[in-house]
């Protein structure tokens, strides 16, 4: 399991999604990525982006203003 992280705090949607997409393009199927965000919209958008593009959301945590989304990269 890899420990890839992306800091998307202070970005408004869809920027956290775009940065997640760019990061995922550099990863291999099966890798995991942890995304840190602050826009509540990311709670909906990153999982939606994962669903349509074949990636798996492992968990979503929210602590105060900070949201952490962990995903696993799917096959092409």
């Amino acid at each position, binding site marked *: 399991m890899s420990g890839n992280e992306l800091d998307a705090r202070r970005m408004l*949607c869809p920027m956290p*999604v775009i940065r997640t997409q760019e990061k995922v393009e550099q990863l291999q199927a099966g890798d995991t990525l942890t995304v840190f965000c602050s*826009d509540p919209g990311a709670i*909906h958008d990153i999982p*939606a982006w994962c669903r*349509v593009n074949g990636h798996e959301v492992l968990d979503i945590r929210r602590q105060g203003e900070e949201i952490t989304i962990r995903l696993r990269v799917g096959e092409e």
Partner: protein
Amino acid sequence: MSVPRKAVALISGGLDSLLAAKVIQEQGIHVEGINFYTGFCVEGHTHAIRKKDTARPKRNNALWVAEQLGIKLHIIDIIEEYKDVVINPKHGYGANLNPCLDCKVFMVQKARQWIEAKGFDFIITGEVIGQRPMSQRKDTLPVISRESGADELLLRPLCAKNLEPTRPEREGWVDRERLHGFEGRTRKPQMALAAAFGFEDYAQPAGGCCFLTDKQYSHKLADLWKARGERRYELDDIMLLKVGRHIRPRPNFKMIIGREEGENRFLQGYRKQYTHMLATSHPGPLVLIDGDAGPDDLDLAAQITARFSQGRNADSVAIEVHTPDGASHSLQVQPMPGAAIPRDWYL
């Protein structure tokens, strides 16, 4: 056996692009979506900065459309490249600072580059002749095909029967008979087609999907360019134009005043970049100062800040001023009466 064909659909999140993609999908073509983020996109989440709007469903409509269609969606950041489209539109602006025709040419051009890189065969858009006054006219649709370089690889499934056959139609990749001949501003054919496909709850943005079509937003952008003496912007500038009450008391500075808790919280993210002030003796908004404000300007801004605090009827309000270098000082001011703020200070 024929080669399976692949198309990319420009997905705005509205009904037309949803239908255009569906019409082609129904013909057995592999479709993926592409959505461009310019920074000016009317986004549910941008509205949701305002706390009062949080009851609205928070969703990205382009992603919602992709889910309805079961297609992949590629969201592309074009913020930097798009500046030239906004600042120097070859075909000019629409009613406001909306460069719709240049915008469409640019996006189709980007889609053409994308299909070349990814090995796709053609491009789909949801354009309908006569639907929009600038970019979707019978005489401008060929301009988009030509200037984008997409030429005959650009198919408009909703109005294809009113246009010359494109290569996907001529080569038999798609059946022209199963495309449509929509025309004009009426939405009835699209709504009927949506019903036939079983689509409900689709987005119908009244002012299109771009802030540049908004009169007040365009006025604020024009003011920004005038105040700076040049036509340029950064992403933070155009985001801040979407938030707060903007007041320009003097040519050298303007104030961005949070209108409620959600906006104040959003503006707090800019505290280190801008001089800002807020009332300390009474509850009140966070106010950013954009421009080069001297002591006399800050005193005037403090009086206006006091006017928008709950101390507006008090004899005196304490205002704390913070500068980007980390320094701060306090001012004791009399709130400016609302009637004393000229209407033309409001942007």
